[in-house]
């Protein structure tokens, strides 16, 4: 530190001002080394080191999630259909992680995954997943897609089936706590819609937005669920589809 301090003494005041605002990304060059050391002095060694270790942790945690959710988080057919997280709404993922912890969704594996995540880690993960947009993994029966599109966009007003697009958006990108469905796995969609009341809203002491979908899931019959699932599983909206909600 004494040597670094004497090095700093040779720098102009301009360099000092710039150095104070630099992040640890500038470590590497000799100037950067001084800047990095100064930054540590100015912002505190502990928080700077914490940032480094969090960034390493984030990469490790992302890889860990992708072990099951697919290398680009596009979803994966493991023993269970493991849902696509790519392009998912951050608020939705955060709410679902909390749902596992609060037993609103009952899943031993995801309970264990979720309850070790810090809020900062959850922010980092949800931002990362939201930024991804790999192609859907596909595999749904193509012949159902046209019927599914009709149900998704228009609903079936004669039999009181609401249009999915009203809440999930015309391109199924979701909004806030309402999930993106575009590219979601066909079997995951089937499992979730066919068993809604067993899949979601499982903790009566913590009622949640899943209650909104309950009557909708009930109003759909099996072949309608298959059609909608097939349609959304093929969708690939452009990255960053604008959300019209202000």
């Amino acid at each position: 530190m004494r040597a670094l301090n004497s090095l700093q003494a040779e720098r102009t005041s301009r360099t000092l001002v710039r150095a104070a605002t630099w992040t640890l990304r500038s470590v590497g060059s000799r100037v950067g080394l001084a800047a990095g050391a100064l930054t540590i002095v100015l912002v505190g060694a502990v928080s700077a080191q914490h940032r480094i270790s969090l960034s390493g942790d984030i990469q490790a945690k992302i890889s860990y999630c992708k072990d099951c959710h697919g290398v680009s988080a596009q979803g994966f057919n493991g023993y269970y259909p493991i849902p696509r997280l790519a392009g998912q709404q951050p608020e939705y993922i955060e709410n679902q992680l909390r749902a596992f912890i609060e037993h609103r969704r009952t899943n031993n594996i995801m309970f264990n995954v979720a309850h070790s995540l810090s809020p900062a880690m959850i922010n980092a993960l949800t931002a990362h997943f939201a930024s991804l947009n790999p192609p859907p993994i596909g595999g749904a029966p193509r012949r159902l897609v046209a019927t599914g599109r009709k149900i998704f966009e228009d609903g079936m007003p004669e039999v009181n089936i609401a249009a999915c697009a009203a809440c999930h958006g015309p391109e199924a990108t979701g909004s806030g706590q309402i999930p993106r469905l575009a590219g979601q796995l066909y079997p995951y969609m089937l499992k979730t819609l066919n068993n809604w009341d067993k899949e979601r809203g499982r903790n009566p002491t913590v009622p949640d937005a899943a209650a909104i979908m309950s009557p909708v899931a009930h109003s759909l019959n099996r072949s309608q669920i298959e059609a909608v699932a097939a349609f959304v599983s093929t969708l690939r909206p452009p990255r960053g589809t604008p959300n019209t909600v202000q």
Partner: protein
Amino acid sequence: MKPMNFRRPQGQHRSTFRSPAGTALILPAAVLALSFSSPAAAQGNVPKAEADAKLRYCEVCHGVSAQGFHGYYPIPRLAGQPTEYLKNQLQAFVEHRRTSNIMFNVGHVLSPAMIDALTTDFNQLNPKPLGGAPKENIDEGKNIFENGVAAGNVPACASCHGPQAKGNGPFPRLAGQLYDYITAKLTNWEKERGQNPAQPDISAVMQPIAHSLTQPQIKAVAAYLSYLE
């Protein structure tokens, strides 16, 4: 204030073409109606189970007490809305005066009797506003709503929507309406309403007013209304 358990008497036909000649003509009128329209409409009411199922369907998107909901779009509050306003808007979707694919599909399958039942039910609901709007300009919004902006040629909103923003006839209730819904409508009035030139409608009344309001004024009014019970 109507009592909350008010229900339209069974069998009463709310047609605006109802004979003024008195009860003696109602039966022949109903028989005549039967020959021109579907049995459900001619009955003048719908089975309670059917109306309730349709109400639940509406509330999937408009909120469990019709207080409005933030889906992909802001989905408006229907609770406490005047029946005449709701009927006119449903017709507006069917006639493409308002363009919404979803609401067109919803609207065009509803029988007149079902529309009577639904609009009566929505009119009687009175849940708390959904809230969530920024609160810093509420006082300014209240002032604009009650007094208008004379310098900007904006009339007082209260003169048509009522001092408590409860609406009246074709004028909508605004009390408790979603902040972002009001903001979106007032900002884009000409793209939102009066979309069918062949069918000019009352939305034309709002057009110059929406134009006169600045964006900060729109947001202030919308914030005030969104908290109004």
